[in-house]
């Protein structure tokens, strides 16, 4: 069992938790992920490591409430326990040897982009962070990003904060203004990563993306997380989750990610109703 040390609501649909998992904390690096199971009937879901504290032995996860499992997870509180928590899995994000990198984060993807930006910053790299959200109410990790970024550009779909537009608009502006990036690291919704890659391809800037496909074991056994990269089948759990974005078949990945959409929707509604009824009876 893995204890929840801290819980913080970052916005109405995104929650941060610090989990007591000393062995995972000892090894975790930005870009890696964990797999958790809330309870005995639960499914295994992968979540990318948002931060870690080797001394305190804690691992931070940040998740958006999108389905039954994240809904259940969000109903747990500090000092409650999670049944299973295993990691760190996957290959850490490559952050060495860069002079200037643009880190592009979209929505809850910023939770994963942040530790990468931090590590780059700490290694002496100039970091330009471009973050995008639907609106100002969904913002997360603003102070954290600012602290590790030499430039911090904010985009919202509705213009309620920063500039109105997409992260690709901001990135294009930066590139057009003469910024020379060794690499772009894009982490967010698949569609966002696809379009960031389309843009950077035009300028021939190497772009790494963090893929988050459906997984079960996460250790190289089930093959459910496979995707096509440069025409070859790769497994996100052991070969990734970071891949060269110019080689990733995003359209296939988008299709595969919605394989269980109907089941997930139904199960989510059931879970929400269950919690509502419980609250009513209390």
């Amino acid at each position: 069992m893995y204890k929840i040390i801290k819980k913080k609501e970052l916005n109405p649909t995104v929650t941060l938790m610090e989990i007591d998992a000393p062995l995972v904390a000892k090894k975790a690096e930005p870009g890696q992920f964990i797999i958790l199971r809330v309870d005995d009937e639960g499914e295994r879901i992968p979540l990318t490591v948002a931060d870690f504290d080797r001394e305190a032995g804690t691992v931070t996860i940040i998740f958006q409430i999108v389905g039954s499992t994240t809904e259940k997870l969000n109903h747990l509180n500090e000092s409650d326990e999670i049944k299973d928590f295993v990691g760190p899995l996957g290959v850490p994000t490559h952050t060495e040897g860069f002079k200037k990198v643009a880190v592009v984060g979209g929505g809850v993807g910023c939770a994963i982009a942040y530790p990468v930006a931090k590590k780059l910053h700490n290694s002496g790299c100039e970091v330009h962070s471009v973050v995008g959200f639907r609106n100002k109410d969904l913002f997360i990790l603003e102070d954290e990003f600012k602290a590790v970024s030499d430039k911090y550009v904010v985009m919202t779909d509705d213009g309620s904060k920063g500039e109105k537009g997409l992260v690709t608009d901001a990135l294009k502006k930066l590139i057009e203004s003469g910024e020379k990036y060794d690499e772009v690291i894009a982490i967010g919704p698949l569609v966002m990563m696809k379009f960031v890659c389309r843009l950077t391809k035009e300028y021939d800037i190497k772009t790494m993306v963090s893929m988050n496909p459906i997984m079960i074991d996460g250790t190289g056994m089930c093959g459910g997380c496979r995707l096509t990269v440069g025409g070859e089948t790769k497994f996100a759990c052991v070969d990734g989750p970071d891949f060269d974005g110019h080689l990733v078949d995003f359209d296939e990945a988008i299709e595969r990610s919605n394989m269980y959409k109907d089941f997930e929707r139904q199960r989510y509604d059931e879970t929400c109703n269950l919690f509502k009824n419980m609250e009513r009876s209390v």
Partner: protein
Amino acid sequence: MPNMSLKKNEMPSQAPDVRNKNFKEVTLGYTKDQAIDEANRCLNCKNKPCVGGCPVAIDIPEFIAKIREEDFEGAYQIISKSSSLPAVCGRVCPQETQCESKCVRGIKGEPVAIGRLERFVADYHMNNCKEEPKKPEQNGHRVAIIGAGPSGLTCAGDLARLGYEVTVYEALHLAGGVLVYGIPEFRLPKAIVQKEIKNLEAMGVKIMTNTVVGKTISVDELFGMGYEAVFIGSGAGLPRFMRIPGENLKGVYSANEYLTRVNLMKAYKKDSDTPIHNSKSVAVVGGGNVAMDAARSAKRLGAENVYIVYRRSMNELPARAEEVEHAEEEGIIFKTLNNPVEILGDEHKFVKGIKCIEMELGEPDDSGRRRPIPKEGSEFILDVDCVVMAIGTSPNPLIRNTTEGLETNKHGCFVVEEETGKTSREGIYAGGDAVTGAATVILAMGAGKDAAKSIDEYIKSK
């Protein structure tokens, strides 16, 4: 006077048409009378050829003699001297190619049903003996085992019996390896696996789940933690695909994923949070035991048509005869001498069919089996909405990539000395699928057993 019937006592089973709609165990096990009657078929040969066919060398005639005497607990004690998981082996061992293939009674008629008797004895013990095994006296030495599957658990059990303090590191949330994620409930009830594991724990074996060696901790760190030897039984690894168009369509699974969803994650139960594609027609590609497990699971999940697509003929199917027979009885359709060339998708990228080509058998190839050759122009489409690829696995890279000096072969399997399981690094032993590639439970157990013996010799000689 021995029972000279040429036939084995038949195994009571659920009727095919009933069992293909539920996940309960197919075979029900012998009654006491059936077991004694079958035990009476054993001639108690002096030279015990059957024992030579058993990878863990159970003293078969002796345990059968105990059954004859109606001392079922005594029979169990004899089996458990050699086997850590008797209730499992009695169910999933390919006895027809091992112990039973050496049985003298098999020369004229059917061999003694050794597997069924083993299962009877193990089940008798589980149902009647409430006493937990005692923790043996400790010898003060510590050994780490990687992977709580058949080889790791066997190695752990044997070492614990010798007094070692054994810790098993398991990547998944549950111990058992392929016994819990791969082999279906209807062939091996998970409650039985858990009881066998409980017995090991009572003997002092510690099991640490959620620990991925190669990620959470490294093999070298294990030595740093004070373990004097390490056994790697990390299992089969990544699923293979055919590299044909359409393999990443929605509704295409590896057998590992399909079976893990069903067995480990219990997707067949209504209240499971883990989904599985609701399919009307399923094509399982491959002809091994895993393919049979996947096909029979698909049928039980409600698929109307389930096909086994296999490129050679019925005679070359690598699956156990009993599994093939059960699958046929349950209505699985065998499309042998067919090979998939493409998986077809609909406008939403869900599987809608599999294009196959007919095959014929040519001259024998390196494996000694006749090589399948495509018949030109014979392509046809099988209407299916789900495809399961059961064509094998390639070894997991996590340990070999993080442990220096461990020799692997060109397939990525660990290279070991066959008799001892010794790897190229002192104190590190390996066995099971991580060494052989996908094989059977009992071969993995045999390797775990051999390694336990050589680990004991190694530590004592230090």
